[in-house]
C-alpha cells in the first residue's frame, strides 16, 4: 500500500489550529513596549497578541481566535509612536522597538466613532434580540460610554429577514459587516456559501446571486452563528412550537440529549466552559414538562454497532470477496452538516458514506416504534425532540426520507442555546438543581456514547467495539484504560494505523454475518479523522487523487471544528480554549462511567434481542436505522 507520511504530515500541519502560543518562553523574542510596559513575544505575533501578553485589553470586533485577522472594523486601532495615523492592533506585526499606545485621545475618539457608525447602521432592538446580553456590539457600546446615537439610527429595516433555512436565520439588519461569517464559511469551513456583494456602503453579506439560504450550498453547520458578534445570524428558534407541544395534554413529549450540550450549557448560565451538567439538565428538562428524557448515548452505541458491522462487512467484501462494488474507506455519517457538504461538493463519492443513520435519527425511529410499542403509546401522539449541539440537525430531521417509523422520526431538533432559553423562561436555576437519571428503557449512560461529542470520539468508540469483537479480548489489554489516545487530538486531519493484534472467535452478535475473522489476522487498520469541512475537503481531494487517505479503511468526519462540542448549536462564544475545556468534560465523563463500550451497553443487547431480532445489519435494522443520500451538486439554477 502506498504510504507517504510526509504527505500526511503536511496535510496535518496545514490543518492545525493556528492558535497562538504567546506568553510561553520564546527563543528569539521581539521586544516592544505597549503603554510603557515592556513585552517579549515570538516573531509573527501581532500587537493585539502582545498586548494580551502584557495584560492589556484592546477591544476588538472583527477579530476572532479561530479566524485570520481582517483589520476591517478598526475598533482595535492603536497609536504607534513615530507613525502617522492609527493602526489595527489585530493585524499590525509586533516589531522590535515598537512603542504602542493603546489609549490616547485620538484612539478613544476613533473607537467611539467607529462604534457610533456601526450603531448608525444597525437596525434592531436589543430587548427583543436573541443575543441580548451576549452581543459584542452591545458590550462595546457599554464599555465605550455610548450615550447617544450621534449619527442617528435606522428608522426601518433595510433587508428582509431570511427564514428559508430550516437551521439558520439571517437578519442582515443587525449585521455590522465584520465579515466573521464570511471568513468562517470560506476559510474555516471552505463551504463558500456566504460572500460580500457589492462595495462600499452598499456592500452586504449574502449568498450566491443573493438567493435565500435554503436555495444555496449552505450546509447548515451554524459555525457562522457561533462567530457572529450580533444577532444577525441565529438558529431557527423552535422553542415556541415545543412549548405548545408540552402544553398539549394529548402529546407525549420525549427528548433525547446528545453528549455535547451537557458539557457546554452551563456557559449560558455563567459557569466556566467544561462544566458538565448532565444530570442537573435532566432535572431541568423534567421540570420544563417533558415526559421522558433519554440519553442519545444509547443510539450512539447503536450507531457504533451498525456502522462497525457495516465496516466489517465492507472489509470482508473488499479483502475476501474482492467485490469491486465495495467502496472504501467507509466514511462516518453522523454529522448532518458533513452529509450535506458531501452531497453538495462530492456527490460522486456518496458511496463511501456509511448507510447508518446518525444517532439522532436512529433514536427517532426507535422511539416511535420500539418505545411506542413497549409503552403502548400511539406513535402519532409522541413528540420526539432532540437536544443537539447542532443546527444542521434541524435540517436533518426535516429530510423527507427520515420517516421510517411511519411518522416524522424526530419532530424537533433543539440547540443547546434554545434549551437554555427554555430553562430560563421556566424560571429554573440550572446550575443549582438536584440531579436526575435518564429514563427507562434507555437509561444506561455510556462512555462510548459520550465521546461522540469530541473529534475522534466516534472513531475511538468504534475501535473499542471492533477490537473487542474481532480479537475476543479486552481493549484494555492493548490500550491503557481503554483510552485509544492515538485517535484523540485537535489536529484537523489525522491518520492512524492500528495493527489488529490477534483474532478471536466471532461473537454471537455477528455470527449471522461471519464464519470467522481469520481474514483479519495480521491486518493493519488504517483510520482517519477530520473535523471542520475545510479539512474534510482536504481528505476528500486526497481520496479522489488516490493519496494516502484513499488507502484508509475508515474515516471519521465531523463538519464542525472540534467535533460536536464545537457545533453550531452550542453556546456562544467559541474558541480553541473553550472547545478544549468542553472536550475535557467529555473525556472526564467517559472515564467516570462503568460502561464505556457500545457492545457492553445492556440496552443495546436488549434491543437486538427484543426488537431488531435479525441482529446488526439485519432487515429491520436496515429499515429503521439506515438511510440513503441525495446527490445535490453545487450548481444552483
Amino acid at each position, binding site marked *: 500500500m502506498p504510504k507517504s507520511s510526509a504527505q500526511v504530515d503536511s496535510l496535518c500541519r496545514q490543518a492545525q489550529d493556528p492558535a497562538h502560543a504567546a506568553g510561553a518562553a520564546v527563543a528569539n523574542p521581539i521586544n516592544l513596549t505597549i503603554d510603557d510596559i515592556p513585552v517579549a513575544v515570538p516573531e509573527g505575533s501581532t500587537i493585539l497578541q502582545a498586548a494580551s501578553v502584557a495584560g492589556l485589553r484592546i477591544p476588538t470586533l472583527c477579530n476572532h481566535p479561530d479566524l485570520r*485577522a*481582517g*483589520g*476591517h*472594523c*478598526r*475598533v482595535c*486601532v492603536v497609536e504607534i509612536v513615530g507613525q*502617522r*495615523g*492609527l493602526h*489595527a492592533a489585530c*493585524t*499590525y*506585526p509586533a516589531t522590535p522597538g515598537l512603542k504602542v499606545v493603546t489609549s490616547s485621545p*485620538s484612539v478613544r*475618539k*476613533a473607537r467611539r*466613532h*467607529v462604534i457610533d*457608525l*456601526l450603531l*448608525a*447602521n444597525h437596525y434592531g432592538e436589543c430587548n427583543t434580540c436573541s443575543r441580548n446580553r451576549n452581543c459584542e456590539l452591545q458590550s462595546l457600546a457599554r464599555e465605550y460610554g455610548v450615550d447617544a446615537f*450621534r*449619527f442617528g439610527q435606522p428608522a426601518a429595516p433595510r433587508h428582509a429577514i431570511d427564514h428559508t433555512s430550516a437551521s439558520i436565520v439571517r437578519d442582515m439588519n443587525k449585521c455590522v*459587516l465584520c*465579515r466573521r461569517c464570511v471568513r468562517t464559511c*470560506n476559510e474555516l469551513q471552505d*463551504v*463558500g*456559501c*456566504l*460572500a*460580500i*456583494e*457589492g*462595495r*462600499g*456602503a*452598499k*456592500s452586504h453579506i449574502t*449568498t*450566491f*446571486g443573493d438567493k435565500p439560504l435554503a436555495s*444555496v*450550498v449552505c450546509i447548515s453547520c451554524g459555525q457562522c452563528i457561533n462567530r457572529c458578534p450580533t444577532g444577525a445570524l441565529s438558529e431557527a428558534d423552535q422553542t415556541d412550537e415545543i412549548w405548545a407541544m408540552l402544553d398539549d395534554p394529548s402529546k407525549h413529549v420525549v427528548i433525547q440529549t446528545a453528549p455535547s450540550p451537557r458539557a457546554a450549557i452551563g456557559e449560558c448560565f455563567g459557569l466556566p466552559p467544561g462544566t458538565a451538567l448532565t444530570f442537573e439538565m435532566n432535572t431541568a428538562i423534567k421540570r420544563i414538562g417533558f415526559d421522558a428524557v433519554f440519553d442519545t448515548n444509547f443510539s450512539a452505541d447503536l450507531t457504533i454497532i451498525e456502522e462497525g458491522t457495516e465496516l466489517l462487512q465492507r472489509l470482508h467484501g473488499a479483502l475476501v470477496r474482492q467485490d469491486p462494488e465495495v467502496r472504501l474507506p467507509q466514511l462516518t455519517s453522523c454529522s448532518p452538516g458533513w452529509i450535506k457538504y458531501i452531497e453538495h461538493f462530492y456527490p460522486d463519492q456518496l458511496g463511501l458514506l456509511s448507510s447508518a443513520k446518525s444517532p439522532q435519527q436512529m433514536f427517532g425511529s426507535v422511539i416511535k416504534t420500539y418505545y411506542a410499542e413497549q409503552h403502548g403509546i400511539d406513535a402519532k401522539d409522541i413528540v420526539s425532540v432532540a437536544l443537539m449541539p447542532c443546527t444542521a440537525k434541524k435540517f436533518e430531521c426535516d429530510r423527507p426520507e427520515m420517516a421510517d417509523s411511519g411518522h416524522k422520526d424526530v419532530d424537533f431538533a433543539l440547540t443547546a442555546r434554545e434549551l437554555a432559553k427554555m430553562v430560563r423562561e421556566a424560571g429554573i436555576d440550572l446550575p443549582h438543581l438536584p440531579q436526575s437519571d435518564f429514563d427507562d428503557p434507555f437509561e444506561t449512560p455510556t462512555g462510548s456514547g459520550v465521546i461522540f461529542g469530541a473529534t475522534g470520539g466516534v472513531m475511538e468508540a468504534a475501535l473499542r467495539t471492533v477490537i473487542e469483537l474481532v480479537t475476543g479480548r479486552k481493549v484494555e489489554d492493548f490500550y491503557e484504560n481503554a483510552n485509544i489516545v492515538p485517535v484523540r487530538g485537535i489536529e484537523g486531519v489525522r491518520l492512524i494505523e492500528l495493527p489488529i493484534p490477534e483474532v478471536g472467535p466471532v461473537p454471537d452478535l455477528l455470527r449471522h454475518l461471519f464464519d470467522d475473522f481469520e481474514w483479519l489476522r495480521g491486518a493493519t487498520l488504517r483510520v482517519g479523522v477530520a473535523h471542520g469541512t475545510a479539512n474534510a475537503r482536504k481528505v476528500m481531494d486526497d481520496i479522489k487523487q488516490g493519496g494516502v487517505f484513499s488507502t484508509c479503511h475508515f474515516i471519521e468526519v465531523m463538519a464542525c471544528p472540534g467535533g460536536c462540542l464545537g457545533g453550531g448549536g452550542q453556546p456562544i462564544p467559541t474558541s480553541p480554549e473553550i472547545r478544549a475545556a468542553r472536550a475535557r468534560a467529555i473525556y472526564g465523563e467517559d472515564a467516570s462511567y462503568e460502561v464505556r463500550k457500545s457492545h457492553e451497553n445492556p440496552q443495546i443487547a436488549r434491543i437486538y434481542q427484543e426488537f431488531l431480532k435479525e441482529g446488526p445489519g439485519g432487515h429491520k435494522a436496515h429499515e429503521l436505522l439506515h438511510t440513503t443520500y441525495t446527490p445535490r451538486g*453545487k*450548481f*444552483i*439554477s
Partner: protein
Amino acid sequence: MLLTEQEKVREFVSRLAKKHDNQRSALIPILRAIQDEYSYVSEFAMQYVGDLLGVHAAQVYSVATFYHFFNTKPKGKFIIRLSRDMSSIMKGAKVIARQLENDLGIKFGETTPDGMFTLGWTSCIGMNYHAPAMLVNNEIYSSLTPQRVHLILEECREGLRSRRPATSRVGSTFTNELTYTEHQDDAGLKKALAMSPSELINEVIASGIRGRGGAGFPTGVKWKLAAEAASDVKYIICNADEGEPGTFKDRIILTQYANLLFEGMTIAAYAVGAREGIVYLRAEYTYIKMLLEEILRGRRTEKQLGSAIFGKEGFDFDIRIHMGAGAYVCGEETALIESLEGHRGEPRNRPPYPVVSGFHGKPTVVNNVETLASVSVILDRGAKWFASIGTERSKGFKLFSVSGDCSRPGVYELPWGTTVNELLDLVGGEDAKAVQVGGYSGALLPASEFNRKLAYEDLGMGGSVIVYGAQRDLLEVAENYLEFFVEESCGQCTPCRDGNVKLLEGVRTLLGGRCSSRHLNELISLSKTIQVASKCGLGQSSPKVLLAVNEHFKDEIMARPIAASH
C-alpha cells in the same frame, strides 16, 4: 436558459479557462471575456467559471459585484457611462444627463425597454480637458453637447457601432514641451544594461525620483528593497489604473509614449531581477489596450522583450496587459494586487509591503506609469541631470493634468517647485477662487494659498489640478467629491464605508441650510477619525475636502439660503 445555450456557455468558458491554465488570477479577464461575448455574466457562467478555477461560486459573484464594469444581469447593448468628475459637472454634464434621459426616455440606472441602452454615471474617465465626456461601451465621446448626444444615440441605433472595435478619438490637448518627445527609443535601457543592477539602482536613487502616482515613495529605494528580497520570482507592475479624478497624464503617456513606459518596466525588471511585468490598465482605458498590445508585439520582435533582451544573456522579461474592471480603489497598490489575483479590489493590511510580499506573495514593485516612463529618461540623461531640476526634496520634472475653470486645460510638464500661481498663469486660470491640487484626495487651496509650491516639501501630489472659478459653489464641490468616495470606497473598513456616508449626508444638510453648528463640529471631528483610522489612502484622504471647505470657506457653508433641490 436552454440546455443548448448552456452548452455553448460551457464550451466558451472552458476554452477561456484553459487558455489561462485555470488560474484564479485570470478570474477578472475571464469574466470580462464572458461579458464581451454575452453582454453580461450569467449565474450559470459564474458558477461554471468558479468550478473550473476552484473558486466558490459565491466568491465569483462577490468579485463580479465589486467592479462597476461587470453586469450580473442583462443590460443594454450600448452602455452609456457619463463621467461625473467635477470638470465634467462644471462643463455641463448635468445638462447632458438630462438630454440623455429625455432622448432615451429612461432615468439613470435604467435600461431602455428595447434593450438597446443602459444609462449610468461613472467616475472620472480621464477626459477632463474635453469635458463633459462619456463612454459608450469602450469608446470615448468628449466635448459633449446636447445636440451631439442625439447624433451619437442615432449612430448607435443605426448599428454603426455595434461591432466596430473601439478606437481612441480623444482629441489633442494643450501642452508645453515634454521631455519625453526628445527621448530616443531604449536609450535609457541600453545604458541600464551596461550597468550592474546595483549600479542601476544607485543611479535611480541618486536621481531622487519619487513615485509619481501621488504617494511619493523614493523609487530607487523601492527597487532596492525588492532587489534585496530573497525570491526567485519577482514582479514589476505598472499601475495604469489612473482613477484620481482630474488626472489624465498617464493616458497621454499610454497613448503617445508607451515605449518609454515599457522601457522603464524593462529597466526596473533588470534592476530587481524580475521576469514578468504586468500593466494593470483601468477598464475605462480599454480603447488603449490594442495599441499597447501592438507596441508590445513590436518590442518582442525587436528583442526589446523576451529572452536575452538586447543580447543580454540571462535577462529575460516580458510584459502583459491586465485589464481592470472599474474600481478607483484598485489604484491603491495592494488593492491592485488583490485584483490581479482575481479577488475583490480591497486593500491589504500592511506591513508586509508589496516589495516583500506582493503579487502571489512574491516581491513586487508597483510603479506608476509616469514614474516608469521618467526612469527611462533618467537612465539616458543621467541622475545628475534629473536631480538638477526641481527642489531640495523634489527632484526632476513632473506632469500635471489641468482642467476646470481655465482657458488652456491640458497636460503640462513643470519642474517641481512651481507655485500654484505660476501654474495658473500658464493654463489661463488667473481668476480662480480655489484650486484642487492632487485630485480629490489632494488639497483644496483657497486663493490665499496660491503662493504655495508644488513639491513634496509643500504640496506633494499625483498630478491632477482642477481649477475652480469665482462663481463655483464649493459645498457642491464637496458633495461631488464625497459622492465619489462613497461610490468608490471598497467597504471593508468601518470609518471609510460608513463615515463617508455620514459626511455626505452632512454636506447635504449644509447645502439645505439645515445644519447646526454642533453637528458641523461633530462632522469635523468624524472627518479626523476617518483620516487616522481608515485602512488605506482612500479613507485617509476622503474627508480632506470637508475639512478644507470648513477651514477656508466657512462663511459660504453656514446658514445658506434654503435651496429647493435639497
